[in-house]
């Protein structure tokens, strides 16, 4: 039964492919996102750029605020809990959330252990910077993986780095001899069965999205070109001059990422992009949280 639930949860992630998941903080923003063509929304009290600016401890959002967003839209609603915070995850499951993001964007509640996600009926998405991290999260029960990027910066460099690292490690594992997988599993600190699945299929056993720092249609298209199966956009939309237009353009850029002429049209006249911070200007690297 538990296994069947996990399959259904991986299946939901498959339905999100080719789509854009947008961070929203109010029912109004959720409606703008749905109207623009978001395939899901992430309900949170503050978007990552503001979490970064405010500092302090960032926690799960108020369930009442999440319920308001669930009522406002018909697409799936996701919400974040802190890394290792089993109780926050149980609360989100109790309000019938569609997906939980065990997220490094919030302050970690546990500096050693992630949640044992196999104990839950609700699906989880987790961040990963490389193949080892992705397979460890999948072993814990994650039904979907995303790059960690560097949320709230508007700088895509880390998402690119994670996606490239993942792809080149997958390519390396695919080309290994079968008897080399045991040693590689030991090196990556992952179960050999999961590594064998990567070896045979040339991809992760779950859907893999890009996240962190995506601010323009071109950023979103870049991540798709690098092999992402869809894109999370956090601060990039509602920190920009014309959120509805930018949201629309990013959705279309993900679908038509290989049509450069159309991308050019989509990139026109979008108003001010989020200002952004360069990676080297940041004090807290959220991607370093939870390995």
């Amino acid at each position: 039964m538990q296994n069947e639930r996990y399959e259904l949860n991986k299946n939901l992630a498959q339905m999100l492919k080719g789509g854009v998941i947008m961070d929203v903080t109010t029912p109004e923003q959720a409606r703008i996102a749905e109207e623009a063509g978001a395939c899901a929304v992430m309900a949170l009290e503050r978007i990552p750029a503001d979490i970064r600016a405010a500092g302090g401890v960032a926690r799960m959002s108020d369930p009442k605020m999440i319920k308001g967003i669930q009522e406002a839209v018909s697409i799936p609603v996701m919400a974040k809990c802190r890394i290792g915070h089993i109780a926050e995850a149980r609360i989100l499951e109790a309000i019938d959330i569609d997906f939980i993001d065990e997220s490094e964007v919030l302050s970690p509640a546990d500096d050693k252990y992630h949640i044992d996600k196999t104990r839950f009926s609700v699906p989880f998405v987790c961040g990963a910077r490389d193949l080892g991290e992705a397979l460890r999260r999948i072993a814990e029960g994650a039904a979907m993986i995303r790059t960690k990027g560097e949320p709230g910066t508007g700088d895509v460099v880390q998402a690119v780095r994670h996606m490239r690292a993942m792809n080149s490690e997958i390519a390396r594992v695919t080309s290994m001899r079968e008897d080399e997988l045991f040693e590689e599993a030991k090196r990556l600190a992952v179960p050999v069965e999961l590594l064998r699945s990567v070896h045979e299929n040339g991809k992760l056993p779950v859907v893999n999205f890009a996240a962190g720092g995506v601010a323009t249609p071109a950023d979103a298209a870049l991540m798709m070109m690098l092999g992402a199966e869809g894109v999370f956009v956090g601060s990039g939309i509602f920190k920009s001059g014309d959120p509805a237009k930018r949201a629309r353009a990013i959705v279309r850029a993900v679908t038509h990422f290989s049509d450069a002429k159309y991308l050019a049209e989509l990139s026109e006249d979008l108003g001010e992009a989020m200002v952004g911070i360069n990676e080297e200007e940041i004090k807290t690297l959220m991607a370093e949280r939870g390995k």
Partner: protein
Amino acid sequence: MRIGVLALQGAFIEHQRAVESLGEECIQVRTRSDLFGLDGLILPGGESTVQGRLLSEQSLTQVLRGEIEGGMPVFGTCAGLILLSKRISNDENVYLGTMSVTVRRNAYGRQLGSFRVTSDMGAIKDFPMVFIRAPYIERVEGEAAALATVDGHIVAARERNMLATSFHPELAPDLRVHGYFLDMVRGRI
């Protein structure tokens, strides 16, 4: 035979693999020009609101509606069923609106209501049906006929050249429902 799968958003690669496993060519459809020379089209699962919006912007809606009304065989799964239906009981949108069925979106609730069951679809016995935040069909009218029922709700229907299921045959390792659609394209059934 050349089958297209609408590739705007959702689980289109899974359908492509299923069709290719049955030995037929399958291409991804994103623009009007991709529709040229197709013998049949699959509308995959995903988010119907997203697919519906992307369809209308590429002015694919009118072109596709014309093709389907002109007799092109089409197979919609989950979101694809919603795109095909003439009425959505809990949503005012109509997308292609070619099939005489009324559907209810997210009829089983949110993700915790998603389930898998083994059931029959006509002559296809014991098919593993996967329902993900699925719709069901409340009513079939005119030439539309129910093909499968689960817990008193219609989950598959056919009307002339249109086949639709609220479950996802592309997520099962079983190719019989895709085989049924290819037989429709071949004009055998």
